[in-house]
């Protein structure tokens, strides 16, 4: 493998890994804020216990999201220096905004929330967790604006004197049409992830309490239902925004849409295959289950719409982009089996999670209890499914962008660092991968350890003015 392939792998490994933790952070801060708000409004102790329990689980998850995030910001320059110099005038600003507006807010108020139970007035403490959540949403907005530029570059002109792309219109970059589909899709995906995280973990205890006639049955019922309702609402919005994304993608990245289906020839009323056999890349696909016209509908909004095929787009791109060094590529076709299967696994995992939420809502109505063995598996898979969906969604989005680093503007090959040798990338990749792997094991063990005892009873927080100076801290490292 050369430095280019290695840099690609490194980006894939570090980014997919980082994004395992991000949606949980975005979504769970919202759910914890909701739980704490309900406790404030009702004084119901259950909600305080749930707030503190999910707070601990969240912090275990957040730690890894935080430390792996630093790698993300540094690696553009480390592995992709020619890309960074070429688009920095446009791409750098959202990253700087993200740090200034989002990261400071998130981390400062998280410190206040974690350590502030006995130090802050009640309302200020509640406001802290809401501000943490706001920080995560801002962060998502800016980094997705940056990513949307790579999918659909807007608001710039090429300056031959400086040999780089330069900013024309910052508002156009922030409100890129790709961003308008992507931001809600990712955000509601995060809420769905958190909904299923809370639902699944609470469901495990709800089932145990159902079997043991435990005293905390009603507390876990509240958590299951909150998680399930959030999942249901968020997943509907994920579908709506995903549909919007499909239409925009067909317009600005037709190759990606064709690759999602493995559609080689341009055709009207193109079908969507739910499942195929034959060769993995669809060159000789035999569909088992096919829905007529659905691909056309996803891409154009009409069941008769024409969707361009891979072969035609390849010919068109080769003629249009082949002449310039920045845009020339042997092939403009992404790895079809990856895009094809990731697209389906993303949707399949998402729909299954949504189904679990509906089932849980039905079963936990009124005095309903859950005892069946099947529910044990649902409790375990509920938090895992959306994580799978998130990862596959991103792998689809980024693999489908290939061979471009910025769609239609620069190929990945032209963006790689010019002075970084193969051995350097090997060394860093081996180190990150081993470290990330070890930390994942530790994280998972720790999560399970803290899930096991459940939402244990807690002391009600007191106002700072009621505490003596020499009392032990409520929370300490």
């Amino acid at each position: 493998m050369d430095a280019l392939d290695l840099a690609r792998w490194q980006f894939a490994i570090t980014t997919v890994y980082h994004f395992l933790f991000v949606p949980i952070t975005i979504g769970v801060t919202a759910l914890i804020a909701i739980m704490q708000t309900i406790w404030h409004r009702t004084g119901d102790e259950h909600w305080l216990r749930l707030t503190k329990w999910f707070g601990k689980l969240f912090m275990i998850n957040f730690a890894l999201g935080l430390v792996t995030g630093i790698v993300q910001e540094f690696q553009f320059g480390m592995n992709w220096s020619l890309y960074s110099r070429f688009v920095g005038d446009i791409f750098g600003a959202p990253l700087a905004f993200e740090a200034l507006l989002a990261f400071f807010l998130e981390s400062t108020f998280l410190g206040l929330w974690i350590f502030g139970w006995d130090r802050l007035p009640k309302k200020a403490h509640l406001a802290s967790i809401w501000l943490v959540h706001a920080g995560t949403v801002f962060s998502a907005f800016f980094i997705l604006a940056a990513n949307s530029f790579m999918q659909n570059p807007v608001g710039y002109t090429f300056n031959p004197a400086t040999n780089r792309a330069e900013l024309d219109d910052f508002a156009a970059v922030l409100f890129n049409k790709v961003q308008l589909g992507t931001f809600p899709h990712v955000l509601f995906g995060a809420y769905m992830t958190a909904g299923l995280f809370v639902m699944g973990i609470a469901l495990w205890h709800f089932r145990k309490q159902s079997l043991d006639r435990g005293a905390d049955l009603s507390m876990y019922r509240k958590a299951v239902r909150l998680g399930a309702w959030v999942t249901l609402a968020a997943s509907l919005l994920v579908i709506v925004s995903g549909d919007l994304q499909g239409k925009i993608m067909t317009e600005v990245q037709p190759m990606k849409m064709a690759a999602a289906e493995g559609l080689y020839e341009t055709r009207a009323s193109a079908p969507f295959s739910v499942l195929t056999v034959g060769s993995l890349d669809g060159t000789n696909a035999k569909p088992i289950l096919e829905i007529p016209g659905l691909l056309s509908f996803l891409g154009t909004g009409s069941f008769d719409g024409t969707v361009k095929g891979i072969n035609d787009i390849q010919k068109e791109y080769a003629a249009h982009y082949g002449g310039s060094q920045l845009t020339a590529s042997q092939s403009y076709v992404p790895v079809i089996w990856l895009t094809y299967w990731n697209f389906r696994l993303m949707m399949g995992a998402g729909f299954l999670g949504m189904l679990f939420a509906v089932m849980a809502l039905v079963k936990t109505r009124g005095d309903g209890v859950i005892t069946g063995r099947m529910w044990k598996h649902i409790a375990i898979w509920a938090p895992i499914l959306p994580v799978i969906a998130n990862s596959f969604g991103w792998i689809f989005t980024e693999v489908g962008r290939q061979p471009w680093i910025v769609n239609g503007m620069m190929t990945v090959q032209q963006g790689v660092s010019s002075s970084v040798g193969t051995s350097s990338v090997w060394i860093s990749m081996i180190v990150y991968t081993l470290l990330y792997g070890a930390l994942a094991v530790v994280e998972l063990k720790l999560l399970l350890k803290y899930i096991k005892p459940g939402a244990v009873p807690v002391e009600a927080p007191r106002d700072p003015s009621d505490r003596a100076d020499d009392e032990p801290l409520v929370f300490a490292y």
Partner: protein
Amino acid sequence: MELTALQIVWFILIAVLWIGYLTLEGFDFGVGMLLPILGKGRDARDTEKRKRVMLNTIGPVWDGNEVWVLTAGGATFAAFPQWYATLFSGFYLALALILVALILRGMGLDYRHKVDSDTWRQRWDWAITGGSGLAALLWGVGLTNIVYGTPIRMNPAVKGDYLFDGNLFTLLGIVPLIGGLTFVGLFLTHGAFFIALKTDGEIRSDARSFGVKSGLVTAVLAVVLLLAINLKHGSLVSWVATVVAAVALLGGILMATKGREGWAFIGTFACIAFAVVAYFGALYPNAMPTSLADGASLSLAAASSTPKTLTIMTWAAVVFTPVVLAYQAWTYWVFRKRLAVHHIPDPEPVAVVK
């Protein structure tokens, strides 16, 4: 090329971000490095309590402190993209090591208290202390290299691009290594004065006297380092800032001997801030001076973004930096009380579950 006012503003702002990072995370690093030294108590129980007192002084704030470097990185990317590109790809393995150090240290701070086991805590202590020490050392080596000069040349293959023509060992020159040691010494002293300011009991006086000793050693290193840099790249700003930094450090040490912990901490704080001013003063008007006779220095003008991007960024900085400063300062106010061993609760019951 003549520098525009906006370019100068952004050069200064990036210096400010580094001042924010090194003055704040500097004492976090110091606390981490001092864990095995000042954490040593009479017996195992006392040792553990002392370590936890130290860790809790930075507990609520270290993460917010670390964001300063992310902002410095993002701002460099946006305001001087070629600087970001040449620096980050050039100092590749050094930065990868810094990342590993920051990861280990951050995980240690977050996870150490989560399981009630001596082995568990011991391992994370290593991560915290080792990570803090390595990061402090490498930031010192890296920043000193930028200012002192590295093999930078124009990329013959890509118009407008500048390359770092070296490897990890290119960065290990004698002056940069002194820079690394000076950062370690400075952060040890800064961390010790921070602990003296934020704790009570035995650990407070121990920290104060450690800071005086480490401060004196650091002062010698710092003088050698800043003289070496000034003799090669000195400007009026860098010479004046060097003098102020030296006076601040010595003043801080003097105040510590008199038991004035607040002033001692302000002393090391100012010393770090003015050391950064000296670095940036020596760097100007370059982003990365070359050490090669046939090389080409990367100037700020050549590295800079367009006036449009710089203008947008300036507005954001003018509006939001004061807000950030206000709520970060408020956090320090909320957690202003000194900590002592009796404030440390027993390990959480959930963590005992096997």
